[in-house]
């Protein structure tokens, strides 16, 4: 049976992990490779690396980092941040990334999704959507959530699927950082609407929230950062909890 995936997300700046990270037994918690290896050993199903510093001159650092991660890690991983063209993506694939996530650049130029899917396959293209509820509408935001756009969550997700995106990573900005749980209603709707996998993101604070995302939200995967980084939720315990709630997971 296909299991539900648990995905830690690592924010990268200048080749180092950022946000407070409270991992014991790590020689260097700022080293994304060490941290990724620790998560893989704990039973993470996939990893996401978001380069928040990504600028043209720093892409080389990122490509080198991806190579180091791929050399060490034996589970799939996604790389995102600052991807603006096919030329940015090819080196990431060659370095060993399994998927790329795109956000701002494809809102500005939706055809890029078609180009990426045609060149690398849909399974390689994850569309990340940051959205917030405004006047009863889920409004898509770009540039790390700073800039509201004209796009609405559901129609944009549908369009992205039609253009060839293979997976949607949906972050509710309203829930992100609250630790009060994932945004269940829009997740449910996305999962009804789309025939491709949806990753829930934003709001994880307790194992119950993951169970809700899978059972009520019908998410295929759930992503979190700080609760894992600070050791508030440990992946093996989370998975045992999910299993005890009849959610199929990889133990």
């Amino acid at each position, binding site marked *: 049976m296909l299991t539900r995936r648990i995905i830690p997300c690592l924010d990268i700046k200048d080749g180092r992990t950022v946000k407070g990270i409270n991992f014991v037994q790590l020689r260097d918690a700022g080293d994304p490779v060490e941290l990724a290896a620790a998560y893989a050993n704990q039973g993470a199903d996939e990893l996401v690396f978001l380069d928040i510093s990504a600028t043209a001159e720093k892409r080389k650092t990122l490509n080198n980092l991806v190579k180091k991660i791929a050399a060490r890690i034996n589970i799939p991983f996604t790389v995102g941040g600052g991807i603006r063209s096919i030329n940015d993506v090819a080196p990431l694939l060659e370095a060993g990334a399994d998927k790329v996530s795109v956000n701002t650049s494809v809102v500005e130029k939706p055809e890029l999704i078609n180009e990426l899917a045609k060149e690398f396959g*849909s399974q390689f293209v994850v569309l990340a959507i940051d959205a917030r509820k405004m006047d009863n509408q889920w409004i898509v935001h770009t540039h790390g959530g700073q800039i509201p756009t004209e796009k609405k969550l559901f129609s944009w997700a549908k369009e992205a699927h039609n253009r060839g995106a293979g997976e949607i990573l949906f972050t509710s900005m309203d829930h992100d950082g609250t630790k009060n749980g994932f945004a269940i209603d829009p997740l449910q709707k996305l999962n009804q609407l789309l*025939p491709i*996998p949806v990753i829930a993101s934003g709001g994880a604070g307790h194992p119950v929230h993951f169970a809700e995302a899978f059972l009520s939200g019908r998410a295929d995967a759930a992503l979190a950062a700080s609760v894992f980084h600070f050791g508030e939720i440990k992946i093996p315990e989370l998975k045992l909890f999910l299993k005890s709630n009849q959610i199929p997971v990889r133990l």
Partner: protein
Amino acid sequence: MNISIVKYNAGNTQSVAFALDRLGIRYLITDVPEEIQRADKVIFPGVGEASSTMKYLRDKKLDNVIVNLKQPVLGICLGMQLLCRHSDENNTTCLGVFDESVQKFTPTSQYKVPHTGWNSLTSVNGWVDPFLQNQLVYFVHSYYVPVNRFTTATTEYTVPFSAAMKKNNFYAVQFHPEKSAGTGEKILKIFLSSSV
């Protein structure tokens, strides 16, 4: 031992190479026919689209090289599908080692496509160790090979399909052993220690 990884216009060659590095196995990534023919074992990886990769293999005359190999060959993901006779992905004639036709998953409200994530191996027999029954491995694919007489492990997603196959010296897996943590490493080791 002398391992060649077939180099062509498909992704994940590097991931397979890294997996062999982690096992301490040396290899050559090559599209030179003689280097592929000379290897003790050949790995034929692949992530991508069937018709463009088949065209590339034909243009480079690697199609005949691959089907005529006598040493153990391991097709991974798209590599496994290309070893079949035909793929519904852009109506592509493939290499024809396995006389099977590759089909597309039909998404339903319960089943998303691509089939993405960790799923279990069932009905394991043949070259994939029966010890690995019910173990989880990582899949990401929209097309599948139906269960057939060459199937040595199945996985269920909308239907039971071929997770692994074997015919003579040709071994094939639909999942990604190079991304399937310890279970994947075990499967790579089984292939690397196999004889025809």
